Structure formats: structure tokens, C-alpha cells
């Protein structure tokens, strides 16, 4: 708006009344929000009504099922422990595979590619069924020693050179139980984590490795101290997804078969009592609880590895106002 009074550059010529005051404007209305709220309120009410009035939800029985010793043990061992152990194998293996894949050595890069190709191609249920039956492959047992020593024996009559021999029962015992399940899920996870870790490593600016190299750091030191910590910022969020997916995939342990597992144990109760809804709700509640805890953990991990990025990070020590301490060098 123009004013007829002359206004000098510093505004001193304008009287107080003509200078615009605070913006006291009416906000934009959002009528559709209210419509959405109404619709959702009705749907929520219907859902609560269903939970409370439908007799198929036998809440007392659900709680009782959740409280069974075998179910609790199944949750702790078959679900939680397996998730943690398989993810440890998966993350360590995935980072290793990613480093191999990005190495200058074409053989190692090839090995990493083949591993990823195989374990991503095989469905976890199929893989676990196969791992559980691995004993069938080792009818004569599994031994550690000189490779192809039996051929040498055949050709040259040298004695067989074996340090350690496990019989078939041992192989069945290990791979046909919890250990087999953890190894199977862990290797499968490593294949997925390899791609996540590779994306993370590639996301780090090339100048970082150059700067570390120029300081005389070896490739290993550069990877461990400079590249991986920064890659973690990109790696952690999708890894959170992977942990949650793994938590749910532990229900596939039945393929091994492992019976100290949450859903298997609830299945036992289900087939004994025909309480289909209550046992499934019990399982859902367990998975919901575990996932919620994991999400909290992920939040803290993301904060840890986000150090130094974004504007919300604060200095370790009380910092002076930026720009105040400029050129002391001059």
C-alpha cells in the first residue's frame, strides 16, 4: 500500500499509527479434517464395540494362553533369542559381504555376489526345511582335515588325514534344532544386509576415504574409523525394518522343526482347545509388544549415528555463538 506522506529511508517520517502492527489474521479453515475425524471416530467405536461384545474374543483365555510357561519360553528363546542371534550373524555377515563386494579383488567380489544371489533366491521356509534335513547329506559324517584326503588314500595309499569327525547324528542334532534355525535365518539375512550395507558404504562421500588415505590411514582403518561409522546413518533405518521382519520370520522355525517357539506353542494350545481367535490374538499381542520395544531401540540408534549431521546436533562442550570466534589466526 502506498502512503501519501513522504517516508524517509529509515521510516522516521511515518507516524506510529501507519506502520503495520502484528499480523492478527484468521487462519485457513480445514473443514475436511473434521469430516475425517468424524468418520474415523465412528470406525474406531465400531472396532472397540467388536472387541468388547464379540464372544469369540475370549480375553481371559488369551491372557491365560500368553501366561503358559512353554509359550513364554517359546517367545524368549524361539522368537527373541533367535532374532538377536540371527541378526548378529546377518549384520556381521552383511557388512563383510558388502566390503568384499566393493573390494578390488574380483574373486572376493564374485564370491559375495554368488552368496547374495543364492540366499536371496531361496525362500526362508524352504531354506529352513533344507537346513533341518542337512544331516541327510552327511551319511558318513562331517570331518575337518585335509581336503580330498580320501582320494589321496585311494591313489597313493597315504593314511586319511582327519582332525575332527562328527557323525551323522551330530549333524542332524545341530542343524535340526535351534542352532540350525539361527544359522539358516542368519545367512539368509546376511544376503539382504549385504545390499543395505553396500548402499550405506556407497553413500559416503569419496572425499572422506581420500582424506583418511592422505593422513596415512590404511584401507582397513579408513573403512573402520571413517567410512563405516558414516555409512551407519544410512544402514540403521532399513536394518530396523530387517529386525522387525526377522522377529516375524522366527515363526518359520517350525520348518526345521524347532518347537520352543512362540507361534508353534500357541498352535499346540489352539489344536488342543480350538480357541482359534484367542491363541492368534495372543501371538499378535506378543509380536506387537516386541516390535514396539524394537522401535524405541531404533530411535536411539539413529540418534547415535546421526551425530554431526543435521542442524539439531549440539557440541560436546558448551559452544560459543557461531561466528563469534573467527580469525584468531590473523
Amino acid at each position, binding site marked *: 500500500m502506498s502512503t501519501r506522506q513522504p517516508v524517509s529511508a529509515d521510516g522516521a517520517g511515518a507516524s506510529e499509527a501507519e506502520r503495520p502492527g502484528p499480523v492478527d489474521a484468521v487462519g485457513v479453515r480445514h473443514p475436511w479434517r473434521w469430516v475425517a475425524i468424524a468418520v474415523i471416530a465412528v470406525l474406531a467405536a465400531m472396532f472397540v464395540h467388536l472387541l468388547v461384545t464379540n464372544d469369540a474374543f475370549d480375553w481371559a483365555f488369551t491372557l491365560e494362553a500368553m501366561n503358559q510357561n512353554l509359550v513364554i519360553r517359546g517367545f524368549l528363546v524361539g522368537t527373541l533369542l533367535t532374532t538377536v542371534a540371527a541378526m548378529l550373524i546377518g549384520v556381521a555377515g552383511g557388512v563383510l559381504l558388502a566390503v568384499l563386494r566393493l573390494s578390488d579383488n574380483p574373486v572376493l567380489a564374485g564370491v559375495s555376489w554368488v552368496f547374495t544371489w543364492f540366499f536371496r533366491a531361496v525362500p526362508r521356509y524352504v531354506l529352513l526345511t533344507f537346513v533341518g534335513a542337512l544331516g541327510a547329506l552327511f551319511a558318513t559324517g562331517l570331518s575337518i582335515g585335509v581336503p580330498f584326503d580320501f582320494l589321496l588314500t585311494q591313489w597313493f595309499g597315504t593314511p586319511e588325514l582327519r582332525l575332527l569327525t562328527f557323525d551323522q547324528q551330530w549333524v542332524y542334532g545341530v542343524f535340526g534344532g535351534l542352532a540350525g534355525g539361527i544359522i539358516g535365518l542368519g545367512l539368509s539375512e546376511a544376503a539382504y544386509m549385504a545390499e543395505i550395507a553396500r548402499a550405506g558404504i556407497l553413500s559416503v562421500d569419496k572425499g572422506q576415504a581420500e582424506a583418511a588415505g592422505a593422513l596415512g590411514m590404511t584401507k582397513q582403518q579408513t573403512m573402520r574409523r571413517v567410512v563405516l561409522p*558414516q555409512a551407519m546413518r544410512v544402514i540403521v533405518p532399513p536394518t530396523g525394518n530387517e529386525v522387525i521382519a526377522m522377529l516375524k520370520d522366527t515363526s518359520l522355525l517350525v520348518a526345521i522343526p524347532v518347537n520352543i517357539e512362540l507361534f508353534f506353542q500357541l498352535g499346540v494350545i489352539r489344536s488342543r482347545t480350538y480357541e482359534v481367535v484367542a491363541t492368534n490374538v495372543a501371538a499378535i499381542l506378543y509380536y506387537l509388544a516386541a516390535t514396539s520395544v524394537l522401535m524405541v531401540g531404533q530411535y536411539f540408534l539413529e540418534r547415535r549415528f546421526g551425530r554431526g549431521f543435521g542442524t539439531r*546436533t549440539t557440541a560436546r562442550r558448551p559452544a560459543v555463538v557461531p561466528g563469534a570466534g573467527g580469525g584468531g589466526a590473523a
Partner: protein
Amino acid sequence: MSGQPLVVARNVSKSFGHVEVLKGIDLEVQRGQVVCLLGPSGSGKTTFLRCINQLETYDGGRIRVDGDLVGLEERGGRLHRLPDKRIAAQRREIGMVFQRFNLFPHMTALENVVEAPCQVLREPRAQAVARARALLERVGLADRAGNYPAQLSGGQQQRVAIARALAMRPKLMLFDEPTSALDPELVGEVLAVMKELAADGTTMIVVTHEVAFAREVADEVVFMDGGVVVERGAPAEVIGAPKHERTRTFLARMRAEHRA
């Protein structure tokens, strides 16, 4: 030994695919000297600088730092490329400052400076921290030790990067356009630190567009264009009274940009 030049480059050449970026560069840098490389972008000066600490391998010629061949070894009458570990060992003696600072963003300023002495030289942490604080003070950033790079201005980041390179006690400092990524008002603080280093007798090779800095600080100015050295000499000659047309054109353009 001390009478010998610290850096001797002879007939250094380098190609990226079919593009020849360096066509036989010769350079000698005496101990305590400051040599400035000037030239238009694409002239090969940055590539040459990166060859000195093996961030690029050179295809022809030889580079020696303090008598040692860089990145190569003569054994049994043949040249052998050095494995990564030996190259890392050679790089410890050569500090480098980058155009884009390349500070480690997940570490504070202090941690950036402490990192290499601790990891590479295995210096005790307390000692490395004490030296790092002294170095940060020297570049005027004692009060910024706890800040992450993202919380520092470009000029401050570059000064931390200089302190980080100095922490390895290098024989030679390489500067790759250290002020080109800075806002104009921040250039001065970085150049001031570099002038101090030069005054303290640090051997420096500086790729720069700061003609005034080169004129004031350099012992020798080398003007490169198209992968060759066009002209070299004392700053008063090369900048004050250039003999070659290409040098004159370049300097005239730099001055015009500076005034604009």
C-alpha cells in the same frame, strides 16, 4: 641430504583413458619453500598435486619426496608398484588440504585432529589431545574443539583441516585450491593461517587461484596450462611481468574476476 630438494618431479605424465592430463611436468621444491601452481581449470595442476601423494597414480616420469620414489620401488632392475600399506606409510609424511575440506563429519573438530596421530602413529591419546588443542589454537579455533564440522563455517572447517594435516608432522604440505569453496569473506582467515605456516618454514605446494597470495608468499610460481608448465619463476616475474601470452590472458581474467 638437506641440500637436496625435498620434492623432485621429472617428466611426470598421466592420462585418464585417452585424455592426457599431464604431459611431462618437471618440478623441484626446496625445503622450506612455497611453490604456487597457477593455471586455468583443467590445466592438470590438481591432478599433479594428487600424484605427489598417490591419490592418483602417474603413468610416466618419476616423483621423489625426500629421495624416495613415490608409489614405486626399484628392485632387481625393475619398477614395482608399492602395496597399499607402503603407500599409506609414505602418505604419513605428506599433509594434504582439500578444496572441500573433507573433515570427518561424525567427529568433533578435536577428534578430527586427534584421529590420525592416535590411529596411524599410535600416539598415546592424552598426548595427541594436548597437541591437537595446541594446533587448534594455532589456527585460531581453540574454542571450537567440541564442535562438529556442520556447526563450523567453511573457513573454520578449512582451518581445522589444516590442523588435522599438521598433526601428522608432515615434511610437506599440499594445498588443493584451499579457498575455492569458501565465501569471499572467509578466504582471508584461511590464507592468514597459510601465510603463518609459510613464515614458519613449512614446505608447501599450493594449487590456488589467489594470485595476490601467490605473489606475496610464494618463492616460486609455476603456471600450468594444457598439462604442461608454461612458465615458472619468481612471483615478481611470472605474475608481475609474464613472458607468455597464455599467462597474461589468465592473469588478466583473474584480475577482472577479482574486481567484479
